């Protein structure tokens, strides 16, 4: 009896020490990790436009039923979901940031959907006509060598100039060529861009276009 208590105690001790160390490391690193993510997103946004652009952040609440909800996460259906989009202005003025002389050049948003094995996050820039200017897959953990190719410029270029009605993979009757061996990932990226475009149009009150 005493022996078994000792076993439990040793295991408890080791787990407590390990989780203590992990909690400490997590505390030490979590600020830097979220900071890194923010910097990466800022850089990703800036790279999407040809000219230097300053962004104005807009947050809008859309009713939840407009959103494609991940079937794996059905239990947490909220009434409304936040949609963040950025309005891009040409930096012509003297001042840093937005001023009156700046010209509206387009919109930028980020959307994500669950792909084959991970959440795929895509940053999208669209012009005033809602045609895609450029996209950047910024976060994914898809299969290396197959789905992970969504991250390459070769795939990202396939979206340039496409509009909402073309935003489907060729198999589903759209204009986007899927990655060989990774149709699910290609479909995910395409779908998340289409969803995001719909949300953006709704947020701007221009659904008819």
């Amino acid at each position, binding site marked *: 009896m005493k022996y078994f208590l000792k076993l439990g105690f040793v295991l408890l001790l080791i787990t407590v020490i390990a989780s203590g160390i992990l909690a400490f490391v997590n505390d*030490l690193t979590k600020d830097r990790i979220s900071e890194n993510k923010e910097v990466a997103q800022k850089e990703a946004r800036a790279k999407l436009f040809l000219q230097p652009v300053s962004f104005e952040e807009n947050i809008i609440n859309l009713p939840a039923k407009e959103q494609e909800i991940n079937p794996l996460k059905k239990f947490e259906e909220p009434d409304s979901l936040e949609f963040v989009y950025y309005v891009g202005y040409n930096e012509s003025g003297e001042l840093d940031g937005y001023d009156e002389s700046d010209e509206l050049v387009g919109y930028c948003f980020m959307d994500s959907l669950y792909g084959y094995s991970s959440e795929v996050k895509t940053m999208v820039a669209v012009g005033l006509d809602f045609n895609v200017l450029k996209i950047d897959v910024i976060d994914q953990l898809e299969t290396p060598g197959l789905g992970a190719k969504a991250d390459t410029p070769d795939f990202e270029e396939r979206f340039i100039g496409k509009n909402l009605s073309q935003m489907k993979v060729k198999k589903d009757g759209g204009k986007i060529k899927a990655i060989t061996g990774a149709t699910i990932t290609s479909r995910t990226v395409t779908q998340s861009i289409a969803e995001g475009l719909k949300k953006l149009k709704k947020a701007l009150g221009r659904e008819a276009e």
Partner: protein
Amino acid sequence: MNLRKEFTKGFVKENPVFIMALGLCPTLAVTSSVENAIGMGLAATFVLTCSNMIISLIKNLIPDKIRIPCFIIVIASFVTIVDLSMNAYKPEIHKSLGLFIPLIVVNCIILGRAEAFASKNKLLPSLLDGLGMGLGFTLALVLIGSIREILGAGLWLGMKVMPDAYIDSPMLVAILAPGAFIIMGLLMGLIKLVNKGK
């Protein structure tokens, strides 16, 4: 004890993938390109060396009956620490290796070496064993990865090695999952054959 032998045995004689058939899951999963193979191999080598060291240090404190859960806790904590600190301080390396780090926890080479070697040996041999086994694992991954990438994409480490006509329509099966099984099986058989001839 021959320290040099502890280090070099992982390369061919006791190669974790081809001879011991350990860690096959990551071997099959990440060898679709040489770059991924090197990334996974080096990340696993690092964790294997460190976990071997820690386990050989605490081996006398752990009762025999619960050694496996204890090893798993040590390995998993270690992997998480590497993951978090790499994410915070070297985000560019984390971006290319980050994919493989969580996979290391379930890599049975690490638990296998902890159980078979580090829990019975002193610090220095355990360190060398971990390093050698890790490099042997890397070697095996790079070998499989090279064959798969050359056949399946016509590239090696992203460089063109086959004529353009081949790259346009490569032997795609090599880069897909069945190709991994076929190529690994053939290599394993080949190595068995060579060893038998000796």
